């Protein structure tokens, strides 16, 4: 699968990443190389095979829903890159 610049830009936007012109070329080539490599899987006949979507062989176990410990307001804000007394702060969303 040949990846072009437009695809890189589209995927980078979805992944919330940016690449400058030089990095864009590198990631384009790297993605192309790796996708060509994983396409080996097309040699495998998977007709009528169900995809493996869950690694557990056990049935889901439910627990009682009860009130337990939770983070205090203060420790919730502890790691915030920017905050005020009560809230996380981010750049303005509405004008």
């Amino acid at each position: 699968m040949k990846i072009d610049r437009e695809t890189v830009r589209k995927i980078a936007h979805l992944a919330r990443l940016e690449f400058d012109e030089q990095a864009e070329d590198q990631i384009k080539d790297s993605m192309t190389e790796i996708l060509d490599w994983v396409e080996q899987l097309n040699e495998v006949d998977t007709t009528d095979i169900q995809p493996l979507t869950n690694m557990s062989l056990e049935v889901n176990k439910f627990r009682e829903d009860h009130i337990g410990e939770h983070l205090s307001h203060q420790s919730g804000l502890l790691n915030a890159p920017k905050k005020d007394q009560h809230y996380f702060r981010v750049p303005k969303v509405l004008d």
Partner: protein
Amino acid sequence: MDLRSFSAIHEHVKNGRISCKEIVDHYLSIIEQKSHLNVFLEVYEGEAKARAEEIDQKIQQGKAGRLAGMVLGLKDVLCYKGHHVQAGSKILDNFQSQFTGTAVQRLLDEDAIIIGRQNCDEFAMGSSTENSAFGPTRNDANPEHVPGGSSGGSAVSVQAGMCTAAIGSDTGGSVRQPAAFCGVVGLKPTYSRVSRYGLIAYASSFDIIGPFTNNMEDSALLLEVMAGADDFDSTVSHQEVPRYTQSLQFNGKVRVAYLKETLESEGLHPEVKSKTLETLQFLQQEGHTVEAVDFPLLRYVLPTYYLLTMAEASSNLSRYDGVKYGYRSFQTANMESMYKKTRTEGFGEEVKRRIMLGTFVLSASYYDAYYTKAQKVRKLLADATRKILKEYDFIVLPTTPTPAFKLGEHSNPLEMYLADLFTVQASIAGVPAISIPNGTDVHGLPIGLQVITDLFQEDKLFGFSQYLLENK
């Protein structure tokens, strides 16, 4: 007194012939002496000493837990309340854990002492511990060589005697491969055997916590303490945890398979091959059944593994957006550019590559062609592996195609991915596997041997691996 294993000293600790304080001091001096290996991102010196004194008191009072005297390092992906953790990444700069993960808590509850956090590839993505925001870790057998990865710091800490054991995580070989490169024992338990609560996620259908040790007893003990049901991880197994420490005896004859494709593999180093063959011959001479099995699907394990883990990683790592914790870029005017600049500046190259590829294969137009296809091949690979393990007790193969390579030797990502060729099969099938030391090459670089067995048969795995270690 040899402090390189817990089983050798715990009687002395219990009887007060050596104190936890003395043990901690010993390790601290080795850590300092070998700081050039870049193993620890942080050493909890004062804290470890204080805790050692507390535990020494408990020992005197006869109240100490099963791990009193055990000093552990933690890979930088395990949450430990009040301590930094950042998965070797700039994007988690200054992040402090708000809680302790289940596995780590269980170790602490048995009076283990934690001595520091250890370097790894960023978000556990890598096979050499070169992809860390903190620079590479070096192999103690030869510092020009990598320790393997992603849990490279943890492997070297045990190899170099900086702690009794270390706790890492294995997604496609991140415990076994560095264990092989460093000549120590590295265990990947059955998927879901240990709670993942408090483990920073890479690929959730593969990730599992596992120990590095210098012997089998310590590995069995650590798994016994860490494993089992947990309310905080809905995917953890509820199967009862056997007494692994009582499973180290081995007798009788077993059926062992080796995969023809692994020994005929093009990139297989001749000395790794001959060491593996020696082991197989030994088993044959001892009267075990040793048979070659065809596994023509081997060439598809790496593409399947990388495709699925990249997809899962792109989803798991979407949480790092600079809003509530970690690094944030302030060169921004609005939310969208804040997200983009934060992630672009915070993540390293390999992580970005995997996020991009993962996002691509999960995007609407390509989902079925790549992601669903890989899940189907995973089903075939898992079934084929389980089928072999129904007919044989163990699969024996090299842990890695080569001994530790040099720093900077694999600059192309695809070349690096091939280092995982023999370890990903067990990860794809979710079955347990262990790497044990199997001698060294002519340059003194360690070689590892991998033993795989069926789901939840860790007790069998310990017994047989111990037998191999003792008799070869």
